[in-house]
């Protein structure tokens, strides 16, 4: 009888009261927050005062609020926990908007606390006032403005619940300064659950049985996994791998899903989509049963919709009902958590005694091997000038077997990283997929390094992207975070240049990275280490030295300037209309309809 009595006692006792700022810290502790990325300002000073008085939660002082959000994203994506951000009102909140949008697009769980002017000044155009809930409404999963002290604790806990449950996403809690000073009751997270928001976790069992039957009987099946597999926890990736192997089918992953299935497994066809492999895209085009798990038929993946996998029965497993039938009509949708559904699928597979459909699968694999033999990721490293693909390939080979995490910025280097750096485990790969945010990777790497202090964390970067958030080198020096920025320097905004070459008659409008800094000196100016590789025979040594250096390192890898990223499905083209290399392009110019697409 001890238990009920203690819970009654808790209910009867008057709730503890404390200042709003103290409630916030208490709530963060109860939610298991260990690190918060932030930048102080007038409206959040009471919270910073509370941070000063305690040691349980570590605060990382960034140099720009956007970087705080990206760092929290890196932290969240590499650990599976909710990332936490604290910024001030007005410019603090508006600077965070890009990061929040990025997290929304890639379904990263975050809680971002923003300061706000005191309630009686809201709407008065006060100093550093911005309509934060208004601005962030379309770029968060949900947001709150706390106007009543008695609601504060509840809102804090609910924010974490909403961020982490269902399809994860960023949640903003806007905190007027008077609330931070007000006496607020505190209640723990036990009793807080949103009344309306109850995402479905378990999949419909009849649908799961039908799906497994379809898969077992398929002649040309393919598994197509996405970031949802990563979000569903490492176990989901394990069961996904298990199921694919049991079925004996090929698997492909989206950019966000890389690592959910081991790249070293022969059943892995590589990434699919615009810069995916030939074999992955052709298999998607010709399959008879497609099993999409935790992916959303994004336009980068499908290519031209009316020619997307025309003859397949499509099974779509997703936790977000709005992902179903959004771009592509599917035959069998199953709503629920990927891990839970995969567990059920494996059970059905076992209980019904299904076996790999060997004979038709052998024919299917024969076809796939023929596509694979095109060797679509081949490149020729013939001269002393380093090819960007080769630089990333060498980085991969040299870091194999290490406890290594990779982040990227956005552009050509990102696609090359996805193609040439192979992942065997989930949560090792952090990239900005949906929003495509240049400047994401460097601060994200910072967040990863905070979560994994002894791991090797490399931001594969481009010289243009790097300069979007390079101020964070200062943060890394302050906290002794030995992040490595592996800058693929081709002196161009490479992907922009590539599109200008392929689609805009090689008129290179404003895409040249002029007046670049000396990255070695730049690193030294901040107190880090700078390295440079200008020729092929320097590359390996530089990578070795980078790995061995226990400090932040900027590596300036000077690569071929006009290399293009292939294979490529030009926008408006279908999976089977892939360009395999520069010579392919001359025969298949981009259609007019494709030109207006991004």
């Amino acid at each position, binding site marked *: 009888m001890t238990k009920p009595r203690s819970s009654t006692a808790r209910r009867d006792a008057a709730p503890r009261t404390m200042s709003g700022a103290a409630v916030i810290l208490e709530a963060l502790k109860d939610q298991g927050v260990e690190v918060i990325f932030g930048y102080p300002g007038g409206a959040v000073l009471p919270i910073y005062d509370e941070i000063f008085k305690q040691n349980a939660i570590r605060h990382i002082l960034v140099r720009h609020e956007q970087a705080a959000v990206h760092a929290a994203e890196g932290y969240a994506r590499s650990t599976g926990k909710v990332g936490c951000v604290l910024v001030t009102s007005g410019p603090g909140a508006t600077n965070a908007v890009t990061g929040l949008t990025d997290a929304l697009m890639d379904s990263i769980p975050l809680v971002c606390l923003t300061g706000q002017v005191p309630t009686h000044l809201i709407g008065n155009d006060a100093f550093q006032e911005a309509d934060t809930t208004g601005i962030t409404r379309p770029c968060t999963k949900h947001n709150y403005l706390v106007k009543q002290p008695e609601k504060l604790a509840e809102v804090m806990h609910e924010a974490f619940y909403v961020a982490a449950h269902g399809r994860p996403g960023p949640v903003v809690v806007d905190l007027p300064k008077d609330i931070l000073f007000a006496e607020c009751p505190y209640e723990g997270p036990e009793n807080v659950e949103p009344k*309306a928001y109850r995402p479905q976790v378990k999949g419909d069992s009849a649908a799961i049985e039908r799906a497994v039957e379809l898969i077992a009987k398929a002649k040309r099946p393919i598994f197509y996994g996405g970031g949802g597999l990563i979000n569903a926890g490492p176990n989901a990736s394990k069961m996904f791998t298990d199921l694919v192997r049991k079925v004996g089918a090929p698997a492909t992953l989206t950019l966000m899903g890389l690592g959910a299935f081991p790249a070293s497994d022969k059943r892995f066809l590589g990434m699919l989509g615009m810069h995916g492999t030939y074999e992955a895209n052709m298999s998607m085009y010709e399959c008879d049963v497609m099993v999409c798990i935790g992916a959303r038929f994004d336009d980068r993946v499908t290519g031209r919709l009316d*020619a*997307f996998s*025309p003859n397949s029965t499509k099974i779509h497993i997703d936790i977000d*009902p709005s992902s179903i039938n959004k771009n*592509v009509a599917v035959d069998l949708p199953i709503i629920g958590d990927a891990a839970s559904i995969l567990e059920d699928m494996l059970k059905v597979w076992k209980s019904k005694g299904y076996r790999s459909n060997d004979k038709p699968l052998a024919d299917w694999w024969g076809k796939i091997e023929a596509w694979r033999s095109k060797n679509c990721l081949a490149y020729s490293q013939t001269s002393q000038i380093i090819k960007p693909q080769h630089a990333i390939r060498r980085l991969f080979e040299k870091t194999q077997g290490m406890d290594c995490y990779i982040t990227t910025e956005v552009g050509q280097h990102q696609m090359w990283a996805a193609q040439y750096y192979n992942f065997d485990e989930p949560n090792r790969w952090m990239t900005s997929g949906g929003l495509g945010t240049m400047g994401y990777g460097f601060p994200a790497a910072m967040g990863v390094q905070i979560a994994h202090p002894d791991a090797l964390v490399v931001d594969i970067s481009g010289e243009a992207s790097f300069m979007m958030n390079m101020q964070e080198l200062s943060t890394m020096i302050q906290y002794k975070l030995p992040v490595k920025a592996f800058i693929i320097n081709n002196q161009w905004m490479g992907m922009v240049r590539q599109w200008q070459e392929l689609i805009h008659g090689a008129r290179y409008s404003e895409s040249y990275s002029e007046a670049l800094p000396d990255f070695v000196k730049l690193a030294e100016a901040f107190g880090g280490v700078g390295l440079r590789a200008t020729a092929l025979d320097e590359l390996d040594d530089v990578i070795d030295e980078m790995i061995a250096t226990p400090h932040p390192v900027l590596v300036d890898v000077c690569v071929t300037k006009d290399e293009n990223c292939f294979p490529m499905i030009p926008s408006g083209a279908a999976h089977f209309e892939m360009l395999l290399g520069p010579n392919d392009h001359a025969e298949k110019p981009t259609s007019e309809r494709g030109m207006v697409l991004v």
Partner: protein
Amino acid sequence: MTIREEEIQRHTIAVLVSNEPGVLARVIGLFSGRGYNIESLTVSEVDEINVRSRITIVTSGTPMVIEQIKAQLSRLVPVFDVHDLTLESPHVSREMALVKIRNDGEQRIEALRIADTFRARALDSTLESFVFELTGDTGKIDAFIDLMVALGEVEVSRTGVVAIARGHDLDMPVVRLNKARRRHKKAEPVK
């Protein structure tokens, strides 16, 4: 897969939401941000105790878009329930209009006569104007306004559509409103 040119359909959707600040902005922002149509939107609190509002939206789109709209609405955190009245069951829908008409002579008499056949009530009258109150489905109100416009200068204020399913099922019941009100009105209990 072939993309069929799908027919545009009009649907009436009822949404039960938590009546909290910003909830209407969330719903409207969803429609504008994703390029959906709003033909009519009405909202009012329907349950004071549980702080719930009901939003009735008339929208149009292909079946795929309508399905998206419902899924997108459902995943908003303060949304409790979404019902597609057009799809789920026969339903009744009504809107109210206040129509002011300014005219004189024979046209004034004709306006009054038409108002009578439409069962519109005159709420206000001067020597050269009427304000009519009219309730009905959208088509009836459109027809009435068309006739009034032919008879004089007209100003219109419409509520937009409210709708509810026919039959005895309660899709979105109001839980405790009446009971709570009664309790409120009771005399103070003896201590």
